């Protein structure tokens, strides 16, 4: 059986990571742990011209760092992530692969000029974490708008969906 290791990619708040372990373990029915030791310094992935972090570079580095680890790796950062052709991404994952990365840069209410809401931020981060890890388990986007695998390009869509896999996605996950 697989496992999930959550690792901080600076800049990152460790407290948020700790609160992800239990719900993620419940979602994928696998052991989930937060990595001990120094977090990964994300500065190597910073792109000066875009003022953002390259999610692809972070994924490559995590793959290298956890080469010998069995199971999945989830990097969590507060840095704003991008892929070359898109203005931003909430996260990125290797489809049916090992590594995923999520950013909570755009998940907080303060990013949109509203008062900070830590509960809401935590709930959005959990949904995006389940979503990206779902991809590493081979799940694709789901048309059920309540399913956590539903594609979201804005926080409004994240807030509509639940942090649970729908019955179809659960079935697909169990068949893998």
């Amino acid at each position: 059986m697989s496992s999930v290791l959550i690792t901080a990619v600076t800049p990152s708040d460790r407290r948020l990571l700790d609160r992800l372990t239990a719900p993620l373990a419940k979602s994928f029915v696998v052991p989930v742990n937060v990595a001990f030791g120094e977090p990964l310094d994300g500065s190597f992935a910073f792109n000066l011209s875009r003022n953002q972090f390259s999610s692809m570079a972070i994924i490559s580095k995590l793959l290298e760092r956890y080469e010998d680890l069995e199971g999945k790796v989830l990097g969590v950062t507060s840095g704003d992530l991008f892929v070359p052709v898109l203005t931003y991404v909430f996260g990125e994952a290797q489809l049916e692969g090992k590594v995923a990365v999520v950013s909570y840069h755009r998940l907080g209410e303060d990013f949109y000029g509203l008062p900070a809401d830590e509960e809401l931020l935590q709930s959005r981060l959990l949904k995006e974490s389940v979503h990206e890890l779902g991809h590493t388990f081979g799940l694709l986007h789901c048309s059920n708008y309540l399913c956590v695998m539903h594609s979201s390009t804005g926080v409004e869509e994240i807030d509509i969906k639940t942090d649970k896999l729908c019955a179809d996605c659960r079935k697909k996950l169990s068949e893998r």
Partner: protein
Amino acid sequence: MIENQKMKPGILIVDDELSVRDSLSKWFKEDGYRVGTAENANRALTLMNEGPWDVILLDIKMPGMDGLELQMRLKEIDRGASIIMVTAFGAVDSAVQALKEGAFDYVTKPVDPEHLTHLVENALRTKKLSDENWRLRQQMSELSGVEEIVGVSLQMKKVVDLARIVAQTDTTVMIRGESGTGKEMVARTIHANSSRRYFPIITVNCGAVPETLLESELFGHEKGAFTGAQYRRKGKFEMAEGGTIFLDEIGTISQKMQVQLLRVIETKQFTRVGGNDLISSDFRVVCATNRNLEAAIADGSFREDLYYRLNVFTISIPPLRERREDIPPLVDHFIKKYATLMNKPAMEINPEAMDLLVRNRWQGNVRELENVIERAMVLAKPPAIRAEDLPFQLSQVQSGSAPTGDSLNEMEKLHIAKILGKFNWNITRSAQALGIDRVTLYSKISRYGLKKP
């Protein structure tokens, strides 16, 4: 699994930058799309040929061949694919050019993920609608397709071939043949195979419309143009806009009408009766006649200039008696047709009856044969049509292939006169006794010049 892959919409990403191809490819794979990537124009063209791809994301700046030219080449392979141009910031001019040349939309790098998702969804929705539209047009075309011309003879195969060939052009066609040979069916075949098929085919039987009404029938009239013209009415030429006008029995129109017709066919413009406005209409002319127009020109009853205007491409349909090998398949066709219409089981035809049918002179050609089969289908008892179910017997039919001149005509004329006399010229009862319909009887009375005593 492979079948599922085929069902998924396909997105082809054409970009020379690996990171762009990779990130877009990943993005769309997570959405469950079938994704292909090409790093240059040649690879894009190869993948396009292996397609189909529903949406193509095409970088406008590529080494070798630029995106605009590649767009053109991709469209040549699949006109239906939606192309979304991906441009660098500030390349709006080329993007506008791409739109003018048929791109679905364009995006500027880097693109907002939400925008990209909606754009691709819209492109797919539009493509689905246009595919559906195409499919429905095909279906409509099949459903509204004309009745098939039945015939195994070389002469009829040639007629069908000529009709299909001329259909591709806008050439005026004259169809010649005896009454009942299927001139209107050939006209409909031409229309159905032409690019005008989604527009109407309007039939005008010039011989059936009284001379005084023909002008308003063809050109329409304004309100108050003549007594009884209470409303403005469109004429047949106006109704045929975009389609075909079939002028049947063209040989019967008056000299005055011939002049007007010539002008309309040449200019495609006319005025309604009682009106002043010049109306233009885009129509194709197909006409038909069973008259010897050359003789009519010689005796001055048909204008030579109109003849040459109409007689650009002629299709001659041979009479049924000159292609007897077509009779058995026609008989089968009509038996099936009337079995369906009358909700009866399909019937056989016994050899004796078929022999009679093949040897008959068929003055009224295929129309007469159809009437005979319809009548036989009413009378015959399953499982087969017998000779007794036919309205003529062996003695009345010409023997073998030796033509007997007008003897059958003469017999028909005498027999009709006898029956009319018997029923005191009651047309309905006489037609019933003769086994033909009233219209046919009227035409025979007129053809044989029979007069009520």
